């Protein structure tokens, strides 16, 4: 019962954020801001991926993942359209939410692989370490993306040495936060509940199929 209430609340929150994104799309159309019309449309499509996965492929993502994806996208486009990136530390907040999303995704994937794949068996503390490393490494890849974009197109994605260091530091903090939350959730058994449906679907649709293919 409690689980259902949380799920319904999560779904409602996710749809509320999607409606806000549609409003932002209307604002950018009214302002004829082509860059943000494209960006917001893309963000809405990406935020609908969990729904598409559920309807077309019967894959149910954990609701927290859905909310985190939508929140990260909403904060980014909202910041751009409403000029919130001018607010002090707003950029840090968006970076933290994105990094936390990556860390959560990494934890979910590692946990599912640990549960269902023969190729991985990991202690929960080892998982926490790998999650922190993965989040930092993904942060580095993101910085590579910005750096190369600046070199190729002359943009100003990276604001300088101190800003890049700060971004990497935020990635690390997000990774550590998720690692601590994840370990606590595993101990309580709530991480298993959270990823159970998704894990079974991934096992059925990907892991077992691959294993069968490998075994001929």
């Amino acid at each position, binding site marked *: 019962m409690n689980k259902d209430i949380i799920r319904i609340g999560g779904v409602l929150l996710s749809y509320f954020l999607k409606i806000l994104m549609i409003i932002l799309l209307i604002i950018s159309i009214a302002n004829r801001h082509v860059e943000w019309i494209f960006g917001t449309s893309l963000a809405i499509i990406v935020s609908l991926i969990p729904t598409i996965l559920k309807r077309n492929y019967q894959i149910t993502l954990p609701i927290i993942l859905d909310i985190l994806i939508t929140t990260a996208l909403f904060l980014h486009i909202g910041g751009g359209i409403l000029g919130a990136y001018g607010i002090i530390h707003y950029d840090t907040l968006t970076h933290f939410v994105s990094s936390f999303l990556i860390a959560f995704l990494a934890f979910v994937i590692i946990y599912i692989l640990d549960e269902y794949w023969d*190729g991985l*068996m990991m202690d929960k*503390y080892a998982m926490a370490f790998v999650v922190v490393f993965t989040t930092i490494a993904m942060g580095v890849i993101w910085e*590579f993306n910005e750096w190369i974009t600046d070199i190729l197109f002359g943009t100003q994605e*990276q604001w300088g040495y101190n800003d890049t*260091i700060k971004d990497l530091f935020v990635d690390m903090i997000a990774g550590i936060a998720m690692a601590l939350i994840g370990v606590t959730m595993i101990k309580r058994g709530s991480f298993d509940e959270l990823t159970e449906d998704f894990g079974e679907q991934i096992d059925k649709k990907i892991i077992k199929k691959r294993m069968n293919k490998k075994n001929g």
Partner: protein
Amino acid sequence: MGKIKIICRKRCFSFSFLLRIVMIISLFLAIWRKDWVWVVGTFIGLSISILPSILKKDVKFTLPWILDFLIALVTILHMCGRLFDFYYTIENYQLITRFFISLLVAFIGLAMIFIFDEHWDGLKMDKYAMAFVTVIFTMAVGVFLEFIKWINITGTYYVKTNNVLMINLSLDTIAGIIIAIIGVSLIKSGRLEKITDDFGNQINKIVIDRIEKSR
């Protein structure tokens, strides 16, 4: 065959002995130059090679020769850079040192993962998963190194620009990928097991067994 073994052991001993002397000199040099990053680096290097033997005198601690070689190479490269000012006079000298540091970090990462996989019940990993973790471990340690450089207020020779930072992180990634590829091939051929066999048994005795007992 016996003679070859004896000669090899003597050489390995003298090489390890030489390495420790180089590291102790390097530690004093780093303190003298107030190079705190290098003080920490040399201290870690010394800890890896000496501390276990001091803590447990009955255990003969032998590092895999690749690890011994890389630690020596990195220490010597940095010492030369600081003593003869190669960091200023040779273009991209810093990048060469950084690349070998990253190779060393990546190999330590790979060796530790492999040893834990072999000896610890808390970790069983496919070789490709090991390769992946080696790469992300190297990238993450590279970021920690950059944090130390950023905090370092006394160091004057570090070039703190975004471009240098990104090049350093690129070198970490490349080094991680190289060791991951070599590592997978070494695991497939069974040579990594041979290289890390003694070291793994010692880590098992000194660290893993104790952790498992305390649990």
